[in-house]
């Protein structure tokens, strides 16, 4: 009947029998039966929360291919730069090991506490020119921070030779009318990075998105753009001007993601006869 059922227990059963033999008081028997029938909560068959583990990898000059294991189980066999592996996982802790795909040699590991069901994003960033250097592990831990502030960092790949030694990058939001979904003609400057050096990850700059009325209304961000100047001369780097007609220098921030607070983008240039083009691609978020 229920957990502490008297009849399950031999001692209780014999007690019942003795009373039964005496036959003095039926009420006692009923009372015992009621006790036997008492209910218990039962033990909940707990199931661990599952979450997505998203391992991203970006290397600039490093051709290494990684083998990833999580809690000693294969997670990804050959992770190339620019690729990511996204897979559901369970467990409140994840021991992530990074090994060389070819040799299986251990490169580095990390232990992540991962309670709940929030997505875990692990970014492997290797900006070293040294092929055997271990990647930096950037982890987006689940956060309760619902403030609309994100952090942005640029890495300028100047293999095209378009960029100067030091670039000033300004991030601008072009506001969008909530009703018409067209640009409303206003703009807000969110941040300026005065000196970003090619081949080196810039510091993170904080972008406050709370003034984005369009995003507040629709969950879609307005249009975020950047402009690039030569930090020394203050002149625009060719292709670094904001052109509303083409929206060429879009930042790449297209979707508000509550769980991602850090964005790393690669800025690169293309020289063309008609002039240069500057592109910016988000390569890691966490």
């Amino acid at each position, binding site marked *: *009947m*229920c*957990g502490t*059922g008297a*009849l*399950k227990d031999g001692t209780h*059963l014999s007690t*019942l*029998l003795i009373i*039964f033999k005496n*036959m003095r008081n*039926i009420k006692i*028997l*009923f009372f015992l*039966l009621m006790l*036997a*029938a*008492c*209910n*218990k*909560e*039962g*033990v*909940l*068959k*707990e*199931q661990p*929360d*599952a*979450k*997505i583990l998203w391992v991203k990898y970006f290397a600039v000059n490093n051709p290494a291919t990684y083998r990833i294991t999580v809690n000693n189980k294969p997670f990804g066999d050959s992770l190339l730069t620019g690729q990511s592996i*996204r*897979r*559901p996982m*369970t467990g409140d802790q994840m021991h992530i090991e990074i090994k060389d795909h070819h040799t299986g040699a251990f490169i580095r590991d990390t232990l992540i506490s991962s309670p709940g*069901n*929030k*997505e875990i994003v692990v970014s492997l960033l290797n900006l070293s020119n040294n092929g055997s250097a271990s990647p930096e592990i950037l982890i987006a831990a689940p956060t309760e921070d619902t403030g609309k502030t994100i952090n942005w960092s640029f890495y300028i790949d100047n293999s095209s030779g378009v960029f100067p030694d030091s670039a000033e990058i300004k991030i601008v939001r072009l506001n969008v009318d909530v009703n018409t979904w067209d640009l409303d003609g206003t703009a807000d400057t969110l941040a300026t990075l005065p000196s970003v050096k090619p081949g080196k990850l810039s510091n993170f700059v904080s972008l406050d998105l709370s003034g984005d009325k369009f995003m507040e209304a*629709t*969950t879609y961000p307005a249009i975020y753009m950047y402009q690039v100047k030569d930090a020394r001369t203050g002149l625009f780097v060719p292709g670094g001007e904001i052109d509303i007609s083409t929206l060429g220098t879009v930042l790449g921030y297209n979707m508000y993601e*509550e*769980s991602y607070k850090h964005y790393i983008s690669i800025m690169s240039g293309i020289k063309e006869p008609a002039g240069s083009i500057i592109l910016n691609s988000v390569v890691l978020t966490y």
Partner: protein
Amino acid sequence: MKFFIRTKPTMRWWKGLLVLIFATAFSNVQAQPLSKKLTVSFSGEDLLTALQKVEKITELDFAFNASNIDHYKAPVATYTDKPLEQVLKGLLRQTALTFKDVNGYIIINKEVRSPAQKDPGSSTAPKDPGSIAGKVIAEESGLPLMGASIRIGNRSVSSDVNGYFKFRLPAGDYTAIVSHIGYGTKEITDITVKENQEFALTVSLKRQKNELAGVTVRGSAKKESAAALYTRQKNSAAISDGISAEQIRVTPDNNTAQVLKRISGLTVQDEKFVTVRGLSERYNNVTLNGASLPSTEPNRRNFAFDIIPSSMVDNIVVNKTATPDLPAEFAGGLIQVNTRNVPNENYTNITIGTGINTNSTGKPFYGLKRGQYEAFGFAGKERTWWTDGNFDAKAYRAYAGAGNREKMAEMSRTIPNTFGMRDYGYQPVQNMQIAMGRRFDLKNNQVMAFSLAASTRHEENIVNERRHYPAYYYYSDSLSRAYNYNSALGGLASLAWQSKVHKLVFKSLYNRRLSSSTTDSYGASWATRPSAHNFMNNVLLVNALWHNRLEGEHLLGKTKIKLDWSGDLIQLQKDQPDNRVSSKYELAETDSYYILTDANGFLSEGLTVFNATFNEKKKSANVNITIPFTLLGREHKIKTGYAFNRRDAFTETMGFRLYWNGNSPQYESGAMYKATYGLPDYKLAQPEFMQPGLLHYKITSINGINATDDYSGIQRIHAGYVMADLKLLEKLRLVGGVRLEENYMRLTGTTYQVATGNPVDSILTYNTVNWLPSANLTYNLSSKMNIRLAYSKTLARADFRERSTYRYYDANEKTIINGAFGLKDGTIDNADLRWEFYPGAGEVMSLSLFYKKFKDPVELVTIDNSGGSLTNFYFNLAGSENKGIEWDFRKSLGFIYHDWNWLSRIFISGNASWMKSEVEFDAAAQLGLGSNKRERPLLGLSPYTYNGGLGYFGDRAGLNINYNRYGRRIIVAGGFPYQDQYENPRDVLDLQISARFLKNKLEVRFNISDLLQQPVIIYQNISVDPPVANGNFIGRTADNAYDPNINKDPKGLNYNKDLDYVRYRGFKGRNTSLNLTYNF
């Protein structure tokens, strides 16, 4: 020989008896005769002369046997103003005679006692007497004889209106003399009364014609009881079998289902359900104390007999053919259970028991969150939030119609979160039963009595289940389990008053059952999302039945016209509260465990909650009058009566699915997905998730078709009948007549519009009139042998559920069950020819041929079997013909060697029936198929049934082995032969050992049921691919659609494990139980 003489020689002995009976009837108006004072002198004359002198002085009536008195002389004595008692003591002191005042009539009799017998009136008599109780019946009719005189020693009693009598006597050996006006006299020897025990004695008396002095027939008690038993059997009006209180008393059975196992022709399934002659539940009917009972089971028309304690049962009669005075709705059998009105003796007993299931012991036992009192049949408030009316369904429908997501979320938060499997650990069977009866003998042979019984039972079992729905799902039985949790609580009370000619009884029965079945299946899905699949389905059912009945029986004047009447009020509530389904898939990168958004949001996916409540009130009234008359020197009877039944039923349902609560998925589904991804069901159903943009409980059904959500019905049946019981010849009896039943049914279906939440009603009415003739002709080939010929027309009506367009989704079966309006009532023409032989006590041998022609029988049919997901619906076949033969026997082994008494206590019994059946339907019009006739059994009908039993019934110990097997039977019929779902035969062997201790006060019973533990298999006669993606039936083409044996199975329609598709396989293990009963 003159048996009695009177001092007034002109009076015949039978007149004396008449006076005796008359005096007995009105004794309460007379003074105490033995205290009457008189003055008399005796001078040594004959005792006869002395008694005549006393009789004259006192003006009292004396009765005695002249042969007993002839050789005695009176003493010389004078009594002056002395009480008659003192005078008679003095007169009879030196004789072996005793005297007794029986209602003012002085009986002088020879004392009958064994040498060892003690005087019942002496101070040395034992403190705990025994008793003799039984019944006096007429040998010709088997009917009870009221007013029969039963004398033992110097004591005498009369039988009551039911023929019952009872003595309390000290232990010893006795002889009883039983007589009745117009009947012979029997002297029954070998009556042995033991302390605290009741000796059962049933006596049949033969009617005497024109004989002034009765002939005394002598026989032993054992032989006489035997004779009486088969007298009743062979004199029943119709073909029937049954068991009496006397027979039940000697068995260790403690509930009615166990008792029913002992009746030939019945198969008891799952320790509680009964089938008769292999016909399924649809074609059996159950009456309790004469009132038809609603089903105790959901979606089944069946009655769980284990709810009635055997100690409350007076008798059970199973009619296999109809008579006009019986309810007409049966074809297999009418099982009439009658509880005790007036107990023969006071009794109190208590039973406590336990038991285990071998497949469950020591294993985790899972279920959803339980209420505190589920063990007693009461679901907790967390499960009854909808059925108890606390959830405003009307408001919720309005909010849904208006798209008010805030309000829907707010109300969704009030729905308790009962998801989440919990391990409670397997608990053994626990059952307890208390029953008591008290009898108060009042003046003037009036009796007041009451009986009370209460019982509680709880049992659990685990079933290993394998299910295969080709191309859709496969669940392996290595992991998949069904956890069945059942509790029952019952009470029964009756209060009766009885006089010589009147009887009034009030009875009340309450039964409550809770069954919670949790299926936890593991396997693969290839349907919505191909992946590993875990399917959980918890079906909680709570039934409460309350039956009140007032009945009366009256003998009107000297005409012996019998009037009986009854009124019943039955209330049944069947709730299916908070049924939860959790369909869990393997996690994928973009897909969580459960489907919370899809195109339809129907009940067949994701996390669902289904609620249903069914209420039925049934009122009925019956009156019957039986008029006996004599014609051509033979007794006949005419009986007529009227019955009225009204049923008011109301069903409400509401299905929910935990579903995304957003307006536009492109905006909000991302957030919902992230918030809910990877969480188990019990976390998703937490109130904090019930928010706009996250989740809510969406009102849903099984599909988008506008089916009925609620339905209510009214049924009125007026029935009247006339029947005659005619003794056409001395050995030829005809019981026949006609019953008229007018049935009116009105069914109102309510569908709630999705857009507005407003109800839309649809009303259907049915009105049918059925003339139902029946005739039972019995010819006595000898005193122990009959041949019977019977015809009857009976009914199998469609019920509310079957006629409603309501669509029920059976999640375990992945099947939709549709009602169908326009269903006609089925009628059945039954014909039986039976030879029966009653060789001895409780022994019977019979051979029957029977024919049943069904018109418009209702079946559950499926035509949509594209691989696994089914749609079943109720359907009228055009007809069905069934021919069968039944063989039945119950025989003691005492005939083998008479000196071995123990052999006579061993009974061997068996019943076998074979049937050939075919069905006919208007396939083209009704199913869009091409064939109108199929040689297949009717739904639920087995082509054969075997029952066998071997039992030893000793005074101290008993052993009983029962075997049964019924042939493959269709549980869901298909439009095409390969779609027929067959239940494979199982050999079921039950063993029962019983013993009595503590001067027979303690009974111990040990049962093992289903010793062979063969699996339950549901199969179809077609081969199937292994359970892999895209697997399906093999060899099915348009050309062979009507081939009943597509897979060329050498075993034909029988199950072939190598070839046939197995839809379900369940393994239950064995059940063992131990019960102790103490009789106070």
